[in-house]
């Protein structure tokens, strides 16, 4: 018998219908105290028959219109009037939100937005630095689309977290619209447990299921969801431009600090052999205080008459290694001019995509 946990069923629904979830009600988990979100069919393996047992509604546009914070946020991000405030309000409704039972949350949007961001960011760096080792490339892309990076972006956008509890808002008779402009998510759950049915083996641990959404994750999902909203209302091109301007161009990562060469001189030597260059030779260019406590050596590494790199150090060996590292960084951080990313054709149908530089790969030592 095929056995699945409820968690698996729900995540399957959430991922496969990422795009459709933009228009339909969300399929994400929102457990209440030992209350099931899914109606379980008689035949447990009949996945098509699982259904939600609550019907979240979208935030009405008339309600969202009354939220000054939503107006300000839309204007601050220059999302234009084509972007409805109800969508923006939905993007700020966390997948484990306290009013997740009533209003549709951002889970489907976040998943879709995440895919968009990951695609455009990865494409950008793949084309910009064609020689970067895969590990480094992944790390650079991750530094741009990781939750912590997106979370700091959400802070820059002025997205605030709703800190008032349900009781607080009831006591202060705060109108609901005021909360729409803030990021709403449940910070902690006492118990998210749902008891597994008979004959079902749970594959996820209780700890995994009970993990509440952290603020970083909730903020990241809000950013992803806002971008999905741009896609839905203003099209793919607008979403692409937004990602480039807000998540790529205005971010900085020192890529050269990510490169590490345990055997720099050896790697450089192999590289020269592979590329058909003369084998590298290190030469002392300048020095001072050889017999003092603080000597300085400047070493250049040459292939024939071409200087590949230069390094300085307090010993000849250190200077030589630094020179080799400098040469290798020069090679791996090569960035061709006037490159086009494949998605350039989305911007203008007449644009012909020029093929990009494809490297042979990293050197095998």
């Amino acid at each position, binding site marked *: 018998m095929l056995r699945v946990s409820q968690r698996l069923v729900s995540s399957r629904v959430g991922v496969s219908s990422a795009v459709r979830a933009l228009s339909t009600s969300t399929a994400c988990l929102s457990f209440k105290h030992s209350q099931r979100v899914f109606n379980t069919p008689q035949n447990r393996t009949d996945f098509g028959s699982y259904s939600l047992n609550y019907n979240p509604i979208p935030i009405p546009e008339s309600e969202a219109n009354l939220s*000054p*914070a939503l*107006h*300000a946020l839309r*204007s*601050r*991000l220059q999302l234009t009037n084509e972007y409805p405030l109800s969508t923006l309000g939905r993007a700020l409704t966390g997948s484990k939100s306290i009013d997740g039972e009533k209003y549709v949350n951002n889970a489907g949007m976040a998943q879709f937005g995440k895919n968009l961001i990951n695609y455009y960011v990865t494409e950008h760096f793949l084309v910009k630095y064609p020689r970067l080792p895969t590990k480094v490339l992944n*790390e*650079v892309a*991750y*530094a*741009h689309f*990781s939750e*912590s*990076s997106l979370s*700091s*972006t959400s*802070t*820059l*956008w*002025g997205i605030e977290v709703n800190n008032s509890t349900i009781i607080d808002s009831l006591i202060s008779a705060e109108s609901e619209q005021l909360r729409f*402009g803030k990021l709403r998510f449940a910070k902690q759950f006492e118990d998210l447990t749902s008891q597994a049915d008979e004959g079902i083996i749970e594959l996820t641990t209780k700890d995994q299921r009970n993990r509440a959404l952290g603020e970083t994750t909730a903020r990241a999902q809000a950013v992803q969801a806002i971008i999905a909203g741009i896609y839905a209302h203003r099209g793919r091109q607008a979403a692409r431009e937004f990602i*480039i*301007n*807000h998540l*790529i*161009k*205005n*971010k*900085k*990562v020192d890529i050269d600090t*990510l490169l590490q060469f345990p055997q720099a001189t050896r790697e450089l030597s192999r590289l020269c052999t592979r590329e058909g260059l003369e084998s590298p030779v290190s030469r002392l*260019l*300048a020095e*001072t205080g050889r017999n003092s406590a603080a000597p*300085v050596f*400047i070493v250049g590494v040459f292939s024939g008459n071409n200087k590949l790199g230069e390094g*300085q150090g307090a010993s000849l060996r250190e200077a030589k290694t630094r020179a080799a590292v400098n040469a290798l960084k020069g090679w791996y951080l090569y960035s061709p001019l006037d490159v086009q990313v494949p998605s350039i054709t989305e911007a203008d149908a007449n644009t012909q995509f020029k093929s990009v530089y494809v490297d042979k790969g990293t050197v095998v030592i």
Partner: protein
Amino acid sequence: MSSRLTAKTLNGVGSFVHQCKRVTLRYSNWGGSSNGMRAFIKNNLKDIASQNPQIEFLVEQKSGHPLIRGDYVNGRDKVVCVRNLDPNEIMVKFNLTKNSSGAKLKTNNKPVESINESVRGIWSPFHIDPQFRHKV
């Protein structure tokens, strides 16, 4: 995971997001020092709010001297007391609040501050022609 790299955000490169997210105007209903603020709210606020849609405006009535308070995306706020000021002077204070980044005030001693490396590199005594090098 926390040891992994996170990209630094440079506001203004590629895109710019206004740093002042909320402005609170506080006035007293009867206090004489709020005369200017009451006139400001009555006559100027509507125009200002429509000219600055990126800012959320909050009008607060509380006894005491009137003030303008700005809340910024970095989580800080700036409070300016505007007692006995006329609407024109309050406008100056409002612009000050609006255009501030919310960061602490600091003196800039260097003409340029950047997180980018200098493209020229730093001067090195070892890279000039040996005949012009300083001899000990």
